[in-house]
C-alpha cells in the first residue's frame, strides 16, 4: 500500500537533482527592476507613483479597488524612471513601474513588526495579508486574502508542499531550510481561515522535508498532520491534492471551498508569516534557476522585477545557446520570447532548455492506446477531445467536458504518437466561448 494519491497521473522524470541540494542564496541587488502592475489573478493595479518619484524598498506602488486583486510593492529603493507598458512573462505586455536602484536598499519605515500576532483578530490577519500583497506563490498567483475569506463553511486547510513540476525545487528548499517560519505561517493561515484540521502534503521523493516537518510538528506539539503523498504528476494540482489528502472531489466548475477546503502553498505560508511577524510585503520570492545547460543551477531569493537574463547570467550563464526559456516548470510553464522579462510573484522557476532538448517530433495519428485516458487526473478522454478538435467539431466534443481539463499536460507527455493533445483541448476551450 503506497502513500496517498489520486486516480490517474504519471511519474514524470523530475530532473530535480540539478538543484535539490543547492541552498537558497540571495541574489545581488539588481540595478533596475521592472515591476508589472498585473502580478496576480484579478484586477490590474493602478500605479501610485509617477516617473521621477523616489521609492523605498517595500513601498506600495500599485493598488486597486475590488475584491480579487492585490497591491504591488517596490522591491528596491531608487527612482521611478518609467510608468508604462513593459514585457510581462504571462501577458506578453502589461503596465509596469520601472525603478532604477540607488544601491542603498533603504527600507520603507512603514515596515514594522506587528508585535504579538496572537492578539490579532481574523479580520486583522486577513487585511495584513492583503496589505502585504500576498498571492499564491505556486504559480497561479491567486490573491491569498480572497482564499482566506471563503464564502462557505470550511473545515480543512491543506498546505501544498508537493512541488510536482519537474526541475523546480524552490518550495523543497524552503521546506528544508525554514520549517519553523513556515509552520508559524501555517498557524496564521489556520487562524485566519478558522479551521481545526490542517494537512501538510509533501511528495515522498522529498524524505528530508517530510522528516524535518514531522520532527518539528511533534516537537512543537502542533495540531498539524504531515502527510507523505505519492510521487506523481500532477499531485500538486489543487483538486488532486484535495482528493489525495481528504478524499473529497471538487465538482466541475466549483472551487475548493465548495467542499470545505482551502489550499495554500508552503511558500505562501512563509510569505504570510513574514508579512504578519515582520510586516514585510511580498517584494521578493524564491526562484529555481535551472536547466541542464545552466552552469550553476541555483535556488535564489530574488527581488521581484529582476530580469530573467540577469538571473541566468548570475548562475554562470549557459554552456549552449538557450533554445527556450520557460517560466515555471516544463509541464505547465510558459515559454518566453525574451530573456528581458521580469520575475513576478508567480515565477516559481526559470528553466533554460537547450536546442538539443527541444526535439519536437512530428504529430502522428492517434492509435487509441488510451494511455492519456489512464493518465488524465480528471478522468477525461483526452484522445477523443483531441480528435474532435482536429476535425473541427467543437460541438461534438462538448460531451467530453473539455472545460474540466486542468491543462496539466500529462496527456501530451504520455502520448506515444506525440500528439499535441493539450493544445487541441485548449482549442476546444476557446472555441466553446
Amino acid at each position, binding site marked *: 500500500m503506497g502513500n496517498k494519491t489520486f486516480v490517474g497521473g504519471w511519474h514524470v522524470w523530475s530532473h530535480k537533482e540539478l538543484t535539490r541540494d543547492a541552498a537558497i542564496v540571495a541574489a545581488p541587488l539588481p540595478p533596475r527592476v521592472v515591476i508589472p502592475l498585473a502580478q496576480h489573478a484579478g484586477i490590474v493595479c493602478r500605479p501610485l507613483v509617477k516617473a521621477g518619484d523616489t521609492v523605498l524598498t517595500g513601498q506600495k506602488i500599485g493598488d486597486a479597488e475590488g475584491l480579487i486583486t492585490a497591491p504591488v510593492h517596490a522591491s528596491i529603493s531608487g527612482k521611478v524612471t518609467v510608468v508604462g507598458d513593459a514585457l510581462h512573462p*504571462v*501577458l*506578453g*505586455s502589461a503596465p509596469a513601474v520601472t525603478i532604477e536602484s540607488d544601491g542603498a536598499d533603504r527600507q520603507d519605515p512603514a515596515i514594522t513588526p506587528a508585535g504579538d500576532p496572537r492578539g490579532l483578530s481574523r479580520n486583522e490577519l486577513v487585511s495584513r495579508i492583503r496589505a502585504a500583497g500576498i498571492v499564491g506563490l505556486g504559480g497561479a498567483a491567486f490573491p491569498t486574502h480572497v482564499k482566506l475569506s471563503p464564502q462557505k463553511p470550511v473545515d480543512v486547510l491543506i498546505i501544498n508542499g508537493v512541488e510536482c513540476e519537474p526541475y523546480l525545487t524552490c518550495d523543497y528548499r524552503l521546506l528544508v531550510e525554514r520549517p519553523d517560519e513556515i509552520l508559524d505561517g501555517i498557524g496564521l493561515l489556520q487562524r485566519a481561515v478558522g479551521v481545526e484540521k490542517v494537512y501538510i502534503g509533501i511528495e515522498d521523493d522529498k524524505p528530508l522535508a517530510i522528516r524535518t516537518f514531522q520532527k518539528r510538528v511533534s516537537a512543537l506539539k502542533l495540531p498539524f498532520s504531515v502527510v507523505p503523498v505519492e510521487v506523481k504528476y500532477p499531485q500538486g494540482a489543487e483538486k488532486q491534492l484535495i482528493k489525495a489528502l481528504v478524499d473529497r472531489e471538487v465538482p466541475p466548475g466549483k472551487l475548493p471551498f465548495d467542499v470545505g477546503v482551502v489550499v495554500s502553498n508552503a511558500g505562501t505560508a512563509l510569505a504570510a508569516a513574514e508579512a504578519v511577524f515582520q510586516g514585510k510585503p511580498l517584494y521578493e520570492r524564491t526562484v529555481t534557476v535551472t536547466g541542464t545547460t545552466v552552469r550553476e543551477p541555483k535556488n535564489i531569493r530574488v527581488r521581484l522585477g529582476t530580469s530573467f537574463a540577469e538571473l541566468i547570467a548570475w548562475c554562470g550563464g549557459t554552456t549552449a545557446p538557450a533554445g527556450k526559456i520557460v517560466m515555471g516548470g516544463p509541464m505547465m510553464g*510558459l*515559454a*518566453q*520570447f*525574451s530573456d528581458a522579462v521580469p520575475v513576478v510573484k508567480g515565477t516559481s522557476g526559470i528553466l533554460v532548455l537547450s536546442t538539443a532538448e527541444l526535439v*519536437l517530433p512530428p504529430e502522428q495519428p492517434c492509435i487509441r492506446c488510451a494511455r492519456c485516458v489512464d493518465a488524465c487526473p480528471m478522468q477525461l478522454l483526452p484522445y477523443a477531445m483531441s480528435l474532435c*478538435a482536429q476535425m*473541427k467539431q467543437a460541438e461534438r466534443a462538448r460531451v467530453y467536458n473539455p472545460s474540466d481539463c486542468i491543462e496539466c499536460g500529462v496527456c501530451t507527455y504520455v502520448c506515444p504518437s506525440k500528439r*499535441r493533445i493539450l*493544445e*487541441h483541448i*485548449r*482549442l476546444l476551450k*476557446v*472555441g466553446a466561448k
Partner: protein
Amino acid sequence: MMRVLWAAAIVGGLGFLFGIVLAWCSKKLYVAADPRVSRLTDLLPGVNCGACGQPGCANFAEALADGTVQPSGCVVASPAARKKIEAFLRQAAPAACACGTPADGGRDVAGVCTLCTAAEKKDIADALEPESEPVEEAAQEMALIACGGGQRARNTFAYTGVADCRIAAKTLGGQKACGSACLEQGTCIEVCPFQAIRVQPEGLPRVIPELCRGCRKCVAACPRKIIFMVPRAAKIFVRCHSRDKGPVVMKRCAVGCIACGKCVKACVAQAIRLENNLAVIDYTRCTGCGQCVSVCPTKTMSFVELPPAVV
C-alpha cells in the same frame, strides 16, 4: 382452409387495429405547422450562416412567422430579398389578407385567403413569386481586415502551436510585436460560410468583396478584433488598427499607420481624420479618388479592389 382464413383474419385484424391507432394519433397528436414557414425558408438566402442568431434559415423563418424577429434580422439577404419577405409577411399576416378579409377567413397554402377572387390571387401570387434570378444580390456591407502587416509586421517569437488565431492570441498575447496585427492562423477563413476570405501569397487573409455577404462571422471570431464592416461602396481602407504612436508602430511594422497626417491633408473630400494615432475614413464622404493612397508613406492606405501587394 381454416388456417388460411385465421391467418388472414389475424393479419387483417391487426392492420385494422393499427389503422385505428394511427388515425387516432394523427388527430390527437397533430402539430399545426405554419404553412408560411416553408415559403419563408425558400425566400431566405438558405446558406444557414447563423448570422441572425438562429441555428439556420429554417429556424429564422419560423421566428419570422411567429413575429419574434424582423426580416432585417437577416443581414445576409439582399435588400430586394428582404423586400420580398416583408411583402410576403404583410400579405400572409394572420391579421388580414391583402384583400381585406379578416384573419379567420381561411387560407390556402401560400397564406392567401380563400375568399380572394382569382384575379386578386394572381396579383398576390405575382408579388410573391421569386423572380427567375434567385436572391443573390450583394449585401450592403462587407468585411475588411484592418491589417496589412503580414511578413512586414515584426514577430517576437515563432508560433508553432495549433493553427488557430484564438489560441495564438492567448500565447503570450500573440507572436506579433504589434498588438493589433493579424496573427495569420486563418480562423476568419475557417468561419466564413461563403469562402469569401482567401489567403494572400504573403500570408495575410483578404476579403473578396464580391463574395462577402456581410454575415459578420469573421468579425466575431477574430481574437484581435481587426475585422470591420464597411459600406459596400468603400473603395479605400486603412490596413492598420494600431493605436500606438508613430515611432512605436515603425519599430513593429512597416505597414502600420504612423499618424503622419499626410492623408488628412491630401484628402480633397475631407473624409479622413486622425483618431488615437490612426487614420479613420468617413465612408459617407470618401469618393475613392486615391489621393491618400498615393501620399501614404507606409502604404497603409490601400484600394479595396486591388490586391494589397502594391508596396
